[in-house]
C-alpha cells in the first residue's frame, strides 16, 4: 500500500510522466466533457419544462450552478496543490496551483455574471451586497490575488510560496460561501442539489443539470492539463526528453488539439 502510494507520488512529481499521461487523457476529457455539455445545454434550454415561479429564466441554472460549484472546487484543488508544494517541495504541484488560478478566476466570473443577469428578472436587481454574493466576489479577488502574485514576484520560488500561502489562507472563504445561505438572511436560494437529500427538482430539469456539472468539470480538467503542459515544456526545455519531443514534432504530431506548428510546416 505505502509502496504503491510513494510510487504514485514520485510519478506525479515527474513532469515527463505528467506530460505523457495528460496527453493521453486530454482527448477523453475533451470528448466526454463536450458531449455532456452539449446534451445538458440543449436539453436544459429547449426541452426542460419552465419553472412554475421563475418561468424560462431558470434555464440559466445549467451554466450558473456548474460554474459556481467548479469555481469553489477549483479553489480547493489550488489550495491543496499549494499546500503539497509547500510541505513536500513538489514542483509539479506548484505548477498545477499556478495554472488553476486564471481558469478558476474565469469560472468565478461566469458564476457572478450569470448570477447577476439571472437576478434581474428574478429578484428585480442585478446585485445585492448579501453574504453569498459578496463571498463569491471575494473568491474571484482571491484568484486575482494569486495571479497578481505570479505576475509581480520575479523569483519563481518566492512567487509559488506566496501564492500557496494566499490560497491556503483564503480557503476559509469556501465554507463561508457554502453556508452563507444558511447563516445569514439572503435573497439567494439554498442549494438545489445536495449529496444527502433527494433533489427538489423534477428529473427533466435535474438530469441536464447533472450533465452540465460533470461536463464542465471535464472541460476544467482539459484546461488544467493544457496549461500545465505548456509550463512543463517551458521549464524542462533543457532536458533530453523535451528536446527529443521537439525534434520529433517536426515529423509527427503529438498534440490532440491540432498543432498549428506542424500544420504550418506542411504548407511550407
Amino acid at each position: 500500500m505505502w509502496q504503491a502510494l510513494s510510487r504514485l507520488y514520485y510519478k506525479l512529481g515527474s513532469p515527463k510522466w505528467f506530460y505523457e499521461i495528460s496527453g493521453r487523457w486530454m482527448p477523453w476529457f475533451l470528448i466526454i466533457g463536450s458531449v455532456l455539455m452539449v446534451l445538458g445545454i440543449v436539453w436544459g434550454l429547449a426541452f426542460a419544462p419552465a419553472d412554475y415561479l421563475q418561468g424560462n429564466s431558470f434555464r440559466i441554472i445549467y451554466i450558473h450552478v456548474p460554474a459556481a460549484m467548479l469555481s469553489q472546487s477549483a479553489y480547493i484543488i489550488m489550495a491543496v496543490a499549494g499546500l503539497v508544494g509547500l510541505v513536500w517541495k513538489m514542483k509539479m504541484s506548484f505548477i498545477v496551483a499556478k495554472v488553476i488560478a486564471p481558469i478558476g478566476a474565469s469560472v468565478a466570473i461566469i458564476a457572478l455574471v450569470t448570477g447577476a443577469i439571472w437576478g434581474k428578472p428574478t429578484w428585480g436587481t442585478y446585485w445585492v451586497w448579501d453574504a453569498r454574493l459578496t463571498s463569491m466576489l471575494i473568491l474571484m479577488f482571491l484568484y486575482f490575488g494569486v495571479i497578481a502574485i505570479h505576475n509581480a514576484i520575479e523569483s519563481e520560488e518566492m512567487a509559488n510560496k506566496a501564492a500557496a500561502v494566499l490560497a491556503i489562507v483564503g480557503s476559509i472563504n469556501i465554507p463561508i460561501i457554502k453556508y452563507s445561505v444558511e447563516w445569514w438572511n439572503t435573497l439567494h436560494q439554498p442549494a438545489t442539489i445536495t449529496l444527502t437529500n433527494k433533489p427538489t427538482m423534477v428529473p427533466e430539469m435535474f438530469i441536464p443539470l447533472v450533465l452540465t456539472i460533470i461536463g464542465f468539470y471535464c472541460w476544467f480538467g482539459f484546461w488544467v492539463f493544457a496549461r500545465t503542459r505548456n509550463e512543463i515544456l517551458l521549464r524542462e526545455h533543457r532536458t533530453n526528453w523535451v528536446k527529443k519531443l521537439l525534434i520529433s514534432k517536426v515529423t509527427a504530431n503529438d498534440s490532440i488539439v491540432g498543432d498549428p506548428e506542424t500544420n504550418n510546416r506542411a504548407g511550407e
Partner: protein
Amino acid sequence: MFFDSFSSFIQMGNHGIYVWLCYGFFAAIVAANFISPMITRHKVIKDLERQMRREQK
C-alpha cells in the same frame, strides 16, 4: 421540445434576453479558455525550436 415555435424558443417568454446573454457570456469565456493555452503552446514550441536551432549552429 418545450417550446412550440422557434421564435418562442428565442423569446423564452420575455426572459430570452437574460438567458441568451448568460449563455453568450459563458460561450465567450469557455472559448477563451480553450484557445488561450493553444496559442501559448504554439508560441512556446516555436520559441524552443528556434532556440534549439540557434544552439546547433
